[in-house]
């Protein structure tokens, strides 16, 4: 019996394959490792991520001409997916650096934690390259299930378990809604491959069944990227989950969800974009307002960053809407898309940076971090305070930071695509965001007192935050290399 696929298809998924094997290896190793040597597991996980990252270009070169479809059209390797895979690997690596002491000093085993982190990364990587709704769905569930466990990993902390319960119920519910939408799409088009759906939409007349399906899929996706009106879970989960995990949740799953959002809606439902674009636009507007206004009232730093990440989800939706910017066939159409790639990279750097400083707060006890903890940080550690200011400026979108360039690119793409009202709203909301970001700056520089943030306790976190700091500034001053990279990833 012949194999159903050429063996070379395995090379296309080489990074995922190796990473999942290494994750299983770490799981086995965790069974025999001594407690005091447990840190080695973290380093091994980091090494596994590095190996997977190094294999990305190898897989690309083996694959030959991109985009390379594999396993009968289940997944495809292209520049877009490579970019997202690199980002998710980076996100997982930073999370491990954050987790070293956090998990190491907790009474919970580290092996399963790191293995689950690697497996959720595998899920995200498969999501980034999925071109068939079945493979996208199964990969999404692989990612989500590991994350439910990670959210509740600190199982004697009530907040952690509550966060897991909330995340689980809303995650499973949104998956159900998404699936129901997919089933209607299947009924209306007779296929589940994105190319097939798109072709069927081109050919078929407008169908209400499909519209309902697309709207339900959109609802499910908006849940996953924490956009209004389906955002309520995000601040609760970010507050309750272990802080390194919260940082990961704010970045990793969102990256992967944006990747499949773009794939499903442009490669799949693209021919019907006139129907669903207004829905996305409404959600983007609502998300920007809800996220930024909601953040104004928060005193807990993790909740504040959670609301701010909702606001950022709204900006990123603008980028999705602007995918069509340009109009002419070929590369100008991708303008909105590479703006998203740049923006998400900047978002990764600045969000991880800000969360990294929050990780240092945990010395005080589980999930009790408030803005006051930053009081007088400037006197005790000018370096940390300065880094935080840069991250906050970047989140607010002020030059010379990567956040500014990203927002600028997104907004100009949205203008080109014909959403001026949304851009005005976005700029207004960025101004609102200054208020709450400034509260942290005020605490650090203007309020006297002994806050709880200590520095230098954790070299691993310091290294990770330093990297984010360097990236945020570097891509703010010199955005060209990253823009060029994002562009080159999108061009065939």
């Amino acid at each position: 019996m012949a194999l159903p696929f050429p063996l070379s298809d395995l090379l296309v998924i080489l990074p995922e394959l190796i990473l999942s094997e290494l994750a299983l290896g770490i799981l086995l190793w965790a069974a025999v490792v001594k407690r005091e040597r447990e840190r080695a597991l973290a380093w091994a996980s980091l090494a596994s991520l590095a190996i997977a990252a190094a294999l990305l270009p190898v897989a690309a070169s083996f694959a030959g001409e991109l985009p390379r479809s594999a396993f009968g059209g289940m997944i495809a390797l292209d520049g877009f997916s490579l970019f997202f895979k690199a980002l998710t690997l980076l996100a997982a690596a930073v999370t491990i650096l954050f987790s070293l002491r956090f998990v190491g000093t907790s009474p919970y085993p580290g092996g399963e934690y790191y293995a689950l982190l690697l497996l959720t990364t595998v899920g995200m990587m498969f999501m980034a390259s999925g071109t068939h709704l079945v493979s996208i769905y199964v990969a999404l569930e692989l990612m989500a299930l590991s994350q439910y466990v990670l959210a509740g990993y600190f199982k004697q902390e009530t907040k952690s378990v509550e966060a897991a319960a909330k995340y689980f119920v809303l995650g499973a519910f949104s998956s159900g809604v998404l699936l129901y939408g997919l089933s209607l799409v299947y009924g209306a088009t007779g296929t589940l491959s994105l190319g097939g759906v798109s072709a069927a939409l081109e050919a078929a007349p407008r169908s209400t069944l499909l519209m309902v399906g697309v709207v339900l899929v959109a609802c499910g996706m908006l849940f996953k990227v924490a956009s209004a009106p389906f955002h309520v879970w995000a601040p609760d989960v970010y507050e309750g989950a272990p802080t390194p995990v919260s940082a990961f949740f704010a970045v990793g799953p969102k990256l992967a969800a944006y990747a499949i959002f773009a794939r499903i809606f442009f490669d799949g439902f693209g021919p019907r974009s006139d129907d669903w674009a207004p829905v996305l636009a409404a959600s983007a507007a609502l998300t920007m307002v809800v996220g930024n206004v909601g953040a104004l009232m928060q005193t807990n730093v993790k909740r504040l960053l959670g609301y701010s990440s909702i606001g950022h989800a709204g900006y990123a939706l603008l980028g999705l809407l602007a995918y069509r910017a340009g109009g002419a066939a070929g590369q100008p159409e991708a303008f909105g898309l590479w703006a998203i790639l740049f923006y998400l990279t900047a978002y990764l750097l600045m969000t991880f940076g800000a969360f990294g400083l929050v990780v240092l707060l945990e010395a005080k006890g589980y999930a009790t971090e408030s803005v006051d903890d930053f009081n007088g940080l400037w006197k005790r550690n000018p370096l940390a305070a300065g880094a935080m200011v840069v991250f906050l400026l970047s989140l607010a979108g002020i030059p010379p930071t990567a956040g500014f360039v990203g927002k600028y690119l997104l907004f100009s793409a949205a203008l080109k695509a014909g959403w001026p009202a949304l851009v005005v709203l976005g700029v207004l909301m960025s101004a609102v965001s200054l208020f709450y970001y400034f509260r942290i700056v005020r605490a650090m520089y203007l309020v006297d007192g002994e806050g709880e943030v200590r520095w230098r306790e954790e070299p691993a976190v310091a290294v990770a935050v330093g990297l984010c700091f360097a990236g945020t500034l570097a891509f703010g001053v010199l955005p060209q290399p990253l823009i060029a990279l994002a562009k080159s990833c999108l061009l065939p």
Partner: protein
Amino acid sequence: MITLAHFVGLSFVVFTIGVVGVLVRRNLLTVLMSIELILNAVNINLVAFSRQLGDLTGQVFSVFVIIVAAGEAAIGLAIVLSLYRLKSSVNLEDAAEMRG
């Protein structure tokens, strides 16, 4: 004759009951069961469309949905257990230590 509309109508009814259950009930166990109802509604749809189109994709997808439902139930119930150990309750509203 049983038509596609029969199955799709039934599936929609079950879907709505499941959604209402998730929104209305506070007992985590019942909420989990309501989510299972939603997934069952999806499967009825998939199988019905598969029958209509004479295409096996729907049936295969429904097998995947069943696999995922089983995994989700395992994790969901484990979360319920750990919540119960901490709070002696499986009510979602009791889990409101955090401000909404």
